[in-house]
């Protein structure tokens, strides 16, 4: 393994690990706040328990998210010093703003988690709202920085160096809005579905438990609405890519030749040597229609640029198919849930629906990981699209295999521990049954803390 590959893999592992916690840190506070709001409104014990349970899970995940994020801020320099030296003054702004979002988030999380007895109920829920807002803000800011790597603006090139820098214009780059929108929706959709899936699974075994019913409803409403919007925002994003990164779009679609009236390929395996995508289901004119809203539009193929500027087509195409498939599956489940509501039936009255929700538990996270592979591998060989190659950005430090292996092992270990802790928590989830209000929940340790 050469050093460049090790650096890319270390970056990929670190980001793939961090994104899970980041996404939960964006969406979980919103669900906590909603549960707490219902608790304040209805006084129903199940909501309070739910709030505290969710808060406890969030606390573990937030800590891991914070430290893995710290690793990333350093890794930008440790692995890509030439990139940061070149671009730091252009895209430092969103990172700085993100810093303040982190502060707000961490401060009010401390208050939220440890302050049940110390602040008024109203202040407590306000702290929750501030966490939810600043979590979303950090996500938006960091994605803006990433969008700049895709569509760099806000500077002029002079002999290979950036001049006339305009950090505001850099933040308003063409991909910023659509990428941030898609990411934020993804955070709510993925977390909502994951949480709903866990509670649906438990409801299948303990149908009357109010705790799980309340949890399912909140999570599913959040996850469902965003999952229905997600393909729409994906379409907006795909058209942004079509305009600004045609080669990347070609890799998404396995489009080797430039053609007008290009078909949409569903599935299939790109054969890079032969320059065709095999076994795909082709919908005539589909791609031209989707990408440019015109069935005759010309879609650039990979052949539009020299071979050394192609991203790894196979990886990108397959990851894209996985994301889109997961997206449509989630949308399907969400629409089913909407239909149940429309028919005035409760979610938990349909065991088949509960099974579908259970099956959808990991889909959002799979889509997120796949989506980032699409974005990041699809940008290769560029670290700044069309401007700087990843190979030029890497540190001269030798032996990068070692930190790569170290961080991989560390993250595997942490992932195992976190999973174990969360499973433990799920196994101990409380029981509240409606028909018999006297029956005490099995464990009420969190009501008093």
């Amino acid at each position: 393994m050469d050093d460049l590959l090790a650096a890319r893999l270390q970056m990929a592992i670190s980001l793939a690990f961090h994104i899970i916690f980041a996404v939960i840190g964006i969406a979980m506070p919103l669900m906590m706040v909603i549960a707490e709001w219902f608790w304040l409104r209805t006084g129903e014990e199940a909501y309070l328990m739910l709030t505290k349970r969710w808060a406890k899970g969030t606390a573990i995940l937030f800590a891991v998210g914070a430290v893995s994020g710290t690793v990333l801020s350093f890794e930008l320099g440790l692995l890509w010093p030439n990139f940061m030296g070149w671009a730091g003054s252009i895209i430092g702004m969103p990172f700085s703003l993100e810093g303040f979002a982190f502060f707000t988030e961490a401060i009010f999380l401390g208050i939220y988690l440890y302050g049940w007895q110390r602040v008024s109920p109203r202040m407590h829920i306000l702290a929750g709202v501030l966490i939810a807002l600043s979590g979303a803000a950090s996500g938006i800011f960091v994605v803006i920085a990433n969008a700049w790597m895709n569509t760099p603006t806000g500077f002029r090139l002079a002999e290979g160096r950036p001049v006339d820098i305009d950090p505001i214009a850099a933040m308003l780059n063409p991909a910023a809005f659509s990428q941030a929108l898609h990411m934020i929706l993804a955070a709510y959709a993925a977390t909502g579905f994951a949480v709903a899936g866990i509670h649906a699974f438990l409801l299948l075994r303990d149908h009357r438990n109010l705790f799980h019913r309340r949890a399912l409803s909140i999570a599913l409403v959040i996850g469902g609405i965003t999952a229905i919007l997600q393909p729409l925002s994906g379409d907006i994003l795909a058209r942004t890519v079509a305009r600004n990164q045609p080669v990347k779009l070609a890799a998404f679609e396995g489009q080797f030749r430039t053609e007008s009236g290009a078909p949409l390929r569903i599935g299939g395996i790109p054969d890079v040597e032969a320059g065709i995508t095999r076994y795909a289901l082709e919908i005539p004119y589909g791609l031209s229609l989707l990408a440019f809203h015109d069935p005759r539009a010309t879609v650039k193929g990979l052949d539009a640029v020299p071979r050394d500027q192609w991203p790894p087509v196979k990886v990108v195409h397959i990851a894209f198919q996985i994301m889109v498939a997961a997206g449509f599956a989630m949308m399907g489940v969400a629409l089913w849930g909407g239909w149940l509501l429309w028919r005035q039936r409760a979610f938990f009255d349909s065991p088949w629906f509960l099974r579908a929700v259970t099956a959808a538990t990991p889909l959002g996270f799979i889509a997120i990981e796949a989506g980032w592979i699409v974005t990041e591998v699809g940008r290769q060989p560029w670290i700044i699209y069309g401007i700087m190659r990843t190979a030029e950005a890497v540190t001269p430090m030798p032996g990068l295999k070692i930190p790569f292996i170290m961080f991989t092992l560390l993250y595997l270990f942490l992932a195992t521990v976190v999973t174990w802790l969360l499973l433990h928590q799920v196994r101990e989830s409380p029981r509240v049954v409606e028909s018999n209000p006297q029956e005490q929940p099995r464990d009420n340790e969190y009501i008093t803390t």
Partner: protein
Amino acid sequence: MSILPLEVILAGVMMISLTLYALMGGADYGGGVWDLLAWGPRAKAQRELIAEAIGPIWEANHVWLILVIVVLFTGFPLAFAVIATALHIPLTLMLLGIVLRGSAFAFRTYGTKEDRTQRRWGRVFSIASLVTPLLLGTVLGAIASGQIRPKDRWVVTDFVRPWLAPFPLAVGLFALVLFAFLAAVYLTLETEDPELQEDFRRRALASAFVVGPVALLVFLLSGTGAPLIRRGLSESWWTWPLQLSTAVFATGAILALWTRRFHMARFCAAGQITLILWGWGVAQFPYLIVPDITVFNAAAPAITLRLLLAALGSGALILFPSFYYLYRIFKGQTAFKTLKDQSK
């Protein structure tokens, strides 16, 4: 408009964040050290006190470090690139420490309450708390040592020699004992229990007496290890006022501990550490990395600096009240007691 150049203001902001990180985050690491060294009949109570004291605040305290990094790579990208390249190894090790410290602490707090698991995470937490400040100090020492020499733009020659040397390592040790000292002083104010308070008073006094010799060691090694800092600290017009007031604060802290005036002790200890950091910072000025990279030749274009300062200014308007609120809620009885007493 402004009297000082933007670069200098921004460097000042970095120094302020670094100082706040040392005063707040540093004490959290020090807490971990005392967790490791907890002994005697009240060892368990000591550990619980430490966990309670840092639980609600460590994540917020930690963001000061992120702020330093972000300001560095936005305002002085070249310096960030060179530091991250040359000090790849200690920085990576420090990151491992940061990750393990934070996650182990969360796992211990929120994990199963079984004793054995608790102890295991406690051990990881405390060892990581010991290693991280050591490496942080080493990195600062290496930056000041004059051994990091960029060639052309960013290329650096040696990845080990600049930091694996007596002076940087001594600075690492210095950071560690200072943080432990600070934590012990703070902890005297975290408990009502006179015995626990006494435990930490004794620890604070003991570490105060270690700080002195280690400081001397750093100073002696700086002669060859970091000549520029040495000259700054011993030959400038401000040398004597600075050394004198640091000494006053250091003695003040010891006297206050001795006589159990813990609020006073905390004030003096914090003052002592602030003066040490700023003495160093001023001695190193204008170098970000001695001897080639200065705040001037590494600075981003003026527009970036202006925007960054504007963002920092407006961020501070949200940040400081929030921090005050956080500390008032959890440290209300201790942190703001003196204030309240005075305003009565």
